């Protein structure tokens, strides 16, 4: 039973959603409208996910609470983590329940605009540096395949920046050809393969042939 019920749940939910793409009307033998049932199920998924987020946060808090309690190395940082978690959570919940409290709203917008948003932007922007060091490090014409990678990348860079056309007016044309013809070709081939692989994986789960995720049979 412990393994059968989860398999049945996956099958029923999966089949219902899949059929809703092909059929409209009611589910045979019931008065339930298929499209409505499918919408409900996806909506429920959102709710279950929200509960899962709570569970995952417990893990985060437990790891850091332990660090603080045992005064492990860097425990001050763990305090910072827990405090900022608490502030963001409490402020958000407060604003949700009292949306008319202007000073709290301003505070909430401020921590979003000056902590959450720019820090995310900073981490993302690190990519600007990494893309430079990665191209320098990785783009060596060591083999024929590596030369193809390198050549295509350099031509693309020269074609897509506004300065490229000033250096040689054919750069945007070459990069356009690479993007529309060569790139489309490769993407298409890989995409078709991926679609088949993903579909087969999904089908195995639907039928219950892959059950590694259910753990051992306890």
């Amino acid at each position, binding site marked *: 039973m412990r393994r059968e019920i989860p398999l049945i749940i996956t099958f029923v939910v999966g089949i219902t959603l899949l059929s809703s793409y092909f059929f409209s009307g009611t589910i045979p033998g019931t008065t339930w409208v298929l499209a409505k049932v499918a*919408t409900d199920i996806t909506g429920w998924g*959102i709710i279950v996910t929200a509960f899962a987020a709570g569970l995952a946060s417990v893990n985060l808090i437990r790891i850091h609470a332990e660090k603080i309690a045992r005064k492990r190395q860097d425990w001050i940082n763990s305090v910072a983590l827990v405090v900022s978690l608490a502030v963001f959570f409490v402020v958000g919940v407060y604003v949700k329940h009292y949306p008319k409290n202007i000073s709290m709203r301003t505070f909430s917008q401020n921590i979003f605009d000056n902590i959450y948003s720019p820090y995310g*932007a900073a981490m993302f922007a690190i990519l600007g540096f990494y893309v*430079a060091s990665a191209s*320098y490090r990785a783009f060596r014409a060591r083999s024929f395949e590596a030369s193809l990678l390198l050549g295509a990348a350099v031509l693309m860079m020269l074609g897509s920046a*506004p300065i490229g056309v000033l250096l040689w007016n054919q750069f945007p044309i070459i990069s356009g050809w690479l993007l529309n013809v060569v790139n489309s070709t490769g993407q298409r081939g890989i995409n078709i393969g991926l679609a088949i692989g993903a579909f087969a994986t999904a089908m195995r789960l639907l039928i219950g042939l892959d059950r590694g995720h259910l753990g051992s049979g306890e």
Partner: protein
Amino acid sequence: MIWKKLQDIDRRIIYTLMIVFLLYPMMFPIGIPIEIDATTKDVFNTLKALNPATDTVVLAASYSVGGAPDVGPQFDAVAKHLFELKIPFLVPSFVSDGPAQVERVLARLESLGLVYGVDAVNLGFITGGEAAVKAFVDNPRTVFIKDFRGNVVADLPIMQRVDKVTDLAYVLDFQTGNPGYADWIRQAPGVKYGAGLVTVSVPAAIPFVNSKQIVGMLKGLRGAAEYELLMERPALAVAKMDAQSLGHLLIVALIILGNTAHFVDKKLSKK
């Protein structure tokens, strides 16, 4: 010796050079001209051809704060354009960062005369990714219960224009990844769909543009710069394009240097 060393420049030197090459043109712009791409014109012309009396547009805010420098300027430009054209737009967010960023854009437009709830609405965030896109497509009017400002969505005047997803003249989706064009294409096949993409997603999206599943596309910051030029209102995005150019040149130069060093060194050591 020197060739060996050049093959392996300390990455910190590269980083420092990057900072210099990008900061300089930002402080002292050069003014390199920009050509406008056809996919950008598609977005512009699609919006321009709409009828303010009957048509409503969706500007989905699915861009994270991290990707905002690439996609945010597109959203700013298009929202401003819609406001000038007097075409009402709904803004649902499919990533949690969306609503707070949209709020800033709307506040700026409100100071210019936009009427909230009539011309535009910040619907707020809905979680679930692709499932959320599907939920919105199924019920664009009722899936958001309260908007980001706490109003009941169903009561807003703008919502009376929309009942089914096919009532929407155009969906323009600003995205930094997930959910994005692939999810919309799968879940909303009957909708005229355009994409404001983070530059990284562009190559993967090209096959869908060619197959007309995506109609109109803005490509990263450059797309925003082009859009600003089409509106004849060059702003922030245009200003940053010079820095882009120099950054590219630096990286290309580094690659050439590294490879030259690699080959010269190989040749010398063979002798």
